[in-house]
């Protein structure tokens, strides 16, 4: 093998990858109305600016883009994560209802935080109080997201609960699911929006039932760490 042949090893890998990408063009994706090479839309203005700055937009000049979806938006009130959460709260396609519930929850959060804000006497105390419900929601979800998960794996006739690391997506899903389950728990007096507001503020302060659920899971994972090696083989 010649010297240049050796030196070329790395770009060769790239070439194979890119050729694999072009190969997938030949076979159509099932169920998708779009062809596989069509790019996702970038509707967020900040992300779009970044895309243009990085020169990635120039490359997309020749590539068609999917249509922005019905729930995409550039409104100042729009939040990607909230929109995801609304979709998870939704039952039987009643999106407007789900959205109203979540927004009422946000309103309650705002009211509670504002009450705290006006009760506080010094400026230092006031500066500590977070007033934006969307920021609270993001922080709360972050606090609720687990890092590990237990999966049943069969070894030698018996099943073990084996702790495995989970992806960001899965962690987000679990946090949202726990939050919703906690809020839906049947109790006469308190309705979903109020429950949501309380849970969000609790989770924001790293307390509450959802955070406890996460900690319980982590504890269980810690107990079962002896089985961790069953993940492989």
């Amino acid at each position, binding site marked *: 093998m010649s010297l240049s042949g050796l030196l070329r090893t790395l770009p060769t890998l790239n070439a194979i990858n890119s050729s694999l990408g*072009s190969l997938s063009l030949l076979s159509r994706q099932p169920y998708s109305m779009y062809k596989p090479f069509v790019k996702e*839309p*970038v*509707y967020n203005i900040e992300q779009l600016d970044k895309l243009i700055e990085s020169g990635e937009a120039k490359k997309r*000049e*020749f590539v068609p*883009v999917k*249509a922005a979806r*019905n729930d995409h938006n550039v*409104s100042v009130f729009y939040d990607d994560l909230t929109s995801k959460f609304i979709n998870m709260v939704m039952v039987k396609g009643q999106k407007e209802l789900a959205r109203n519930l979540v927004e009422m929850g946000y309103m309650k959060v705002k009211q509670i935080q504002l009450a705290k804000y006006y009760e506080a006497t010094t400026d230092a105390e006031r500066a500590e109080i977070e007033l934006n419900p969307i920021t609270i929601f993001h922080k709360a979800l972050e606090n609720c997201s687990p890092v590990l998960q237990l999966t049943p794996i069969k070894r030698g006739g018996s099943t073990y609960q084996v702790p495995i690391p989970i992806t960001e997506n899965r962690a987000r899903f679990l946090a949202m699911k726990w939050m919703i389950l906690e809020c839906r728990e049947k109790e006469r007096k308190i309705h979903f929006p109020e429950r949501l507001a309380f849970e969000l503020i609790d989770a924001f302060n790293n307390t509450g039932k959802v955070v406890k659920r996460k900690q319980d899971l982590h504890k269980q994972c810690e107990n079962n760490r002896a089985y961790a090696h069953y993940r492989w083989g």
Partner: protein
Amino acid sequence: MAALREVLIFNSKCFRGVRSYFCSSPAFQYSSLSPNNASSNVQKLDFEESDTKRISKAMKSYMERAKIHDNFIKEQLHQYNIGKRHLANMMGKDPEFFTQHDVNEAIRYLFPSGLYDPRARPMMKHPDEIYPKRKAAEFDMNGRPFHSLFYTSKPNYYNLLHDLAVKFKQLDNHEDKMIYRGIQDQQASELFLFGTDWVSKESVESVLLESLTDSQYSNLIKTMERFAQHRYAVREKNFIMQFRHQLAAQTEIQKIPELMRDESNRPFTTFSARRKRSNATVKVIGEGTGLISINGEDILYFKRKQDKEQIIFPLEFCNMLGKVDVVATCEGVGMSGRVGSIRLAIAMCLRCFVDAETIERMRLAGLLSYDPRERERKKPGQPGAREKFTWKKR
């Protein structure tokens, strides 16, 4: 015998012609087709009794096939010319200066057709355009093939791959030389590949005069891709570019209509768009105050928050909120379909009021794309599109 030698030389020559890919020299492509070329000589030779013994069976059958084909093409050409004269007479024009364009016009006028697919409508074209081109003889009088790769059954294709390998080696040698001399200049191959794509399977086939399988085509493209990734691929730019075609920028594909003026001299445009089972016609008027009217009502025509936001989306995206008036009419099934069609139509109209950069931004944001997604049909044997009945053993 001398004539025979001529044929051989001619054939071997035209075979060499294949090596220059995408060359449109008629000698290479039409050699066996045109009546006054090699194969007509072959016909004469066929009946020379002294040489019949030496001619192999393969050559004989080839010559027979060539003869039949040539006669067929000749006949077709004759009919085409007669037809052209008839059409010229019918249209009252000079037959000598009657072009293919005139023929098409005449056919469209004399044989009007309501068929949807243009290929299904009546047509009259030159036989060269209708009947596929054929390869010239690939073997000599003794049945011995000219090409070393003849028995691969696709000599032109494998020859191309072989050429690629040779060129690859040459580039490697060049790179070695450069490294030896201590010159390390980075030449980005991306630069000249930008905005182009590999040619389609059909065009490769038409040039090689061989039918390729999907895997053969993807193999070729894979090899070319890897070749183009070479650090010194720029040296073989002309060779590579023969296999690439120019892409049109997405924003250039869509034509932007010109602004019109209404009676009060305000600029406006209209656009009709569709989504799901509904369609909308939108008129966007410049120098406005942000009035929105949908089917005679204001934005409250839509009850859901999401729908109202969708109407505002393109206007907010290009900072045109409060600068233009929107008059929309929509009809069809479903509110989200209606709102989707209005959004697309507004975005399309706004292209006339903003600069090119904003149009590209709108395209990247997915505002200028038609949404092809539709309700998936219910399937027999299951309650919905994807949902299945509960499975019971008995």
